[in-house]
């Protein structure tokens, strides 16, 4: 196996499909030597796994519709390489799961079939020549959004991979030590048509919450308050030339800066995960976007 993976299964304690989830993760550990991430420990102490996630692609396995493992990954801004949803996997096997929590021969059979499916997927990726299939980067991944509708306005919140400041800026890792920064969908809609963006020079160093760039819209002048500490390594020249890209595509084409992170472990403590940010932003939306 060329590419490295780690596995984040759900806790899977109280349901038969949870048991299959756990057994599948254990098979991946036993046979392919993949590190298993304890979901609750990840939730409680994410820093412990920082290096693991930078060194490995992440496979998430959920056993029920609550999708605890996916949610924990999303809340920690993790990029998921493969999502395995056990109810779907069981359908593929054509076998019926037991209704007991104890591990039966039938459970073992189902688990082995699911394991083989995942193993085949991993091997298939390894077999693809690098030239024709470069390693997927965070930026190639499709962003999935939570949606909040308010009157005629639709607000998008990326489910995973992004952290937010209370000032409505986002930060998204693009490699171990670098990240992109941009303006949230809520703020770009609040500012309305953005007409002018002044970005800092490459090499500029700043601390978390420093004002580092200016944005002017038809409605207001706004400062980019950096959500993290770092050094500017690139600016989005497209945004300087076409500021409306921030309105059109705030999380993708409308990114503003790329930075080398200098104090992320501490900075992240003051950042919000998707659900927290969404909850706070909905309150702002109710105030600012009166029906």
């Amino acid at each position, binding site marked *: 196996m060329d590419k490295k993976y780690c596995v984040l299964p759900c*806790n899977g304690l*109280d349901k038969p499909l949870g048991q299959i989830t*756990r057994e599948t993760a254990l098979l991946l550990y036993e046979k392919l030597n993949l590190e298993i991430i304890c979901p609750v420990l990840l939730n409680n102490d994410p820093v412990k796994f920082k290096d693991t996630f930078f060194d490995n692609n992440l496979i998430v396995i959920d056993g029920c519709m609550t999708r605890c493992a996916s949610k924990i990954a999303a809340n920690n801004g993790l990029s998921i390489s493969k999502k395995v949803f056990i109810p779907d996997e069981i359908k593929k096997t054509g076998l019926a799961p037991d209704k007991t929590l104890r591990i039966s021969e039938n459970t073992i059979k189902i688990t082995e079939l699911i394991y083989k499916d995942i193993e085949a997927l991993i091997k298939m990726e390894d077999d693809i020549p690098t030239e024709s299939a470069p390693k997927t980067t965070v930026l190639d991944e499709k962003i999935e959004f939570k949606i909040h509708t308010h009157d005629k306005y639709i607000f998008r919140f990326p489910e995973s991979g992004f952290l937010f400041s209370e000032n409505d800026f986002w930060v998204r890792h693009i490699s171990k030590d670098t990240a992109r920064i941009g303006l949230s969908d809520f703020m770009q809609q609040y500012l309305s048509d953005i007409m002018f963006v002044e970005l800092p020079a490459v090499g500029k160093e700043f601390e978390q919450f420093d004002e580092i760039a200016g944005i002017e819209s038809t409605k207001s002048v706004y400062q980019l308050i950096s959500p993290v500490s770092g050094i500017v390594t690139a600016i989005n020249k497209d945004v300087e030339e076409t500021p409306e890209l921030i309105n059109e595509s705030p999380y993708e084409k409308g990114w503003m800066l790329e930075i080398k992170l200098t104090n992320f472990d501490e900075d992240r403590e003051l950042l919000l995960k998707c659900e927290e940010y969404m909850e706070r932003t909905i309150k702002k939306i109710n105030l600012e976007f009166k029906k």
Partner: protein
Amino acid sequence: MSKKIIILPCSGIGKAFGTITRETVFKVTGELRPNDSEKMCLSLLVKEDEEALSKIKGQKVITIDGCAKLCSQKSVEYHSGNIVESIKVMDIIRENKGLKPGTVTNIGEDGWRLVEIISEKVCNIIDTENGRIK
């Protein structure tokens, strides 16, 4: 409201001690005290599932943790649950020197012996809480 005592093991995946906490819970809630106890998935609690939160506030809880992070105990404390006992597998191992559990996938004879010892302890707590032992 159910009067069953909630037995809440840590997630414990990836470690032999974690497997012991889970197996203990299956043994107590499934075999030894099915009418007096029930299990709860810790992920639901940490993800603040409404049903789990409501349940944890209304019932007695026994937490069982496999490592020093004490995820189960801390999660219940965080949500102001009523913990009647916090069991730490490491303490039980210290009290039973010589028992060495195997691996996460095969906890071995010593591991199963520890499951029995902890299960017995949990049953005693349940019986005491229910007034069967004074």
